[in-house]
């Protein structure tokens, strides 16, 4: 099984504003580190040619979407917290608003499957309303792929 992750950020200002300029400048080098990271499988990209283009979607303005698939929880964790990405993350308050509700969700997908953004948003909604479960969890309350696979609901979710 592979691990899918959706991570939303609420921008403090429009993506093309001066306030976000430093963040936009970091998109290319940091995404390049993700793409080369051990265990990286896939991420949702707006454009193959413009590395600074952020994902366009219908879920509201000022909402930045990071959506990716990894070979394991450890590979994702090592990219997020054990690479130069950590330093960018530390600066998040300069660019993103603090959110009271969860903005990140993970779940297991069969290898070779690329989930849709609509499904990802549903998983996040599920985490927000029902708390962590094998179908929608966080780092702190993580589930292994076998815990997820042994649940009858997992088959339902894979449809």
């Amino acid at each position, binding site marked *: 099984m592979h691990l899918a992750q959706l991570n939303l950020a609420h921008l403090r200002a429009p993506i093309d504003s001066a306030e976000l300029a430093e963040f936009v400048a970091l998109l290319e080098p940091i995404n390049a580190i993700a793409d080369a990271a051990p265990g990286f499988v896939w991420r949702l990209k707006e454009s193959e040619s413009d590395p600074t283009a952020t994902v366009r979607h219908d879920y509201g303005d000022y909402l930045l979407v990071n959506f990716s698939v990894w070979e394991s929880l450890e590979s994702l964790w090592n990219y997020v*917290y*054990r690479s130069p990405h*950590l330093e960018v*993350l530390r600066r998040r308050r300069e660019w993103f608003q*603090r959110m009271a509700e969860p903005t990140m969700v993970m779940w297991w997908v069969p290898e070779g499957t690329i989930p849709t953004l609509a499904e990802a948003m549903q998983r996040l909604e599920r985490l927000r309303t029902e708390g962590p479960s094998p179908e929608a969890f966080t780092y702190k309350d993580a589930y292994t792929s076998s815990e997820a696979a042994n649940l009858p609901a997992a088959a339902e979710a894979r449809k």
Partner: protein
Amino acid sequence: MSTDDLDALALLNDPVRRSLYEAVAAGGGDVGRGEAAEAAGVSRTLAGHHLDKLVEAGLLESGFRAPAKKGPGSGRPAKVYRRSRGERSVSLPPRDYVTLASVLADVVDLLGAEEQAEKAARGAGERIGARHAGEPVERVLGERGYEPYEEDGLLRLRNCPFHVLATDQPLLVCSMNLALCQGLLRGLGEDPARARLDARPGECCVALSKTNED
């Protein structure tokens, strides 16, 4: 107190086992029987015997390294050892600081008090540093469990002393750790900017430039 932990740690009372354990830990990854034997100053056979005892007790893990050459005459894969990920601790009387620290970390998160937490960590670092003024930072960090080593002109830290908390709340704990290291440098009378984030898998998130010139 867990009897298992006590039994495992008691194995290190033997000086040979202890130096073998330290040799493997200092290797930072897979260490062969021969290398460990050489570092501990004992024969390969004796080293193998004691290393396997440490594996049995769960202090080390073992694996096999494929031979460099393939085909006939290349020999069997070499047995290698690395430090176990699991933690062992013994405290008398029993103490549990991790549970409380983890709750406090959650409180910082709930309050959005990261900046104050970093400020407090910087202050704590300064006080530690001031108590060791004039001592080399390598030694002070070494005594605090960071396991410093040099690589490419940097002083890297092999061990994260806050590992369990850093796994739970990486952003908060790594930020506080950086502030603590910077405060510690200041307390020692050195340039705090020597410490910066340079995270690598399996190690501490902080690295120090060797001198304050760069």
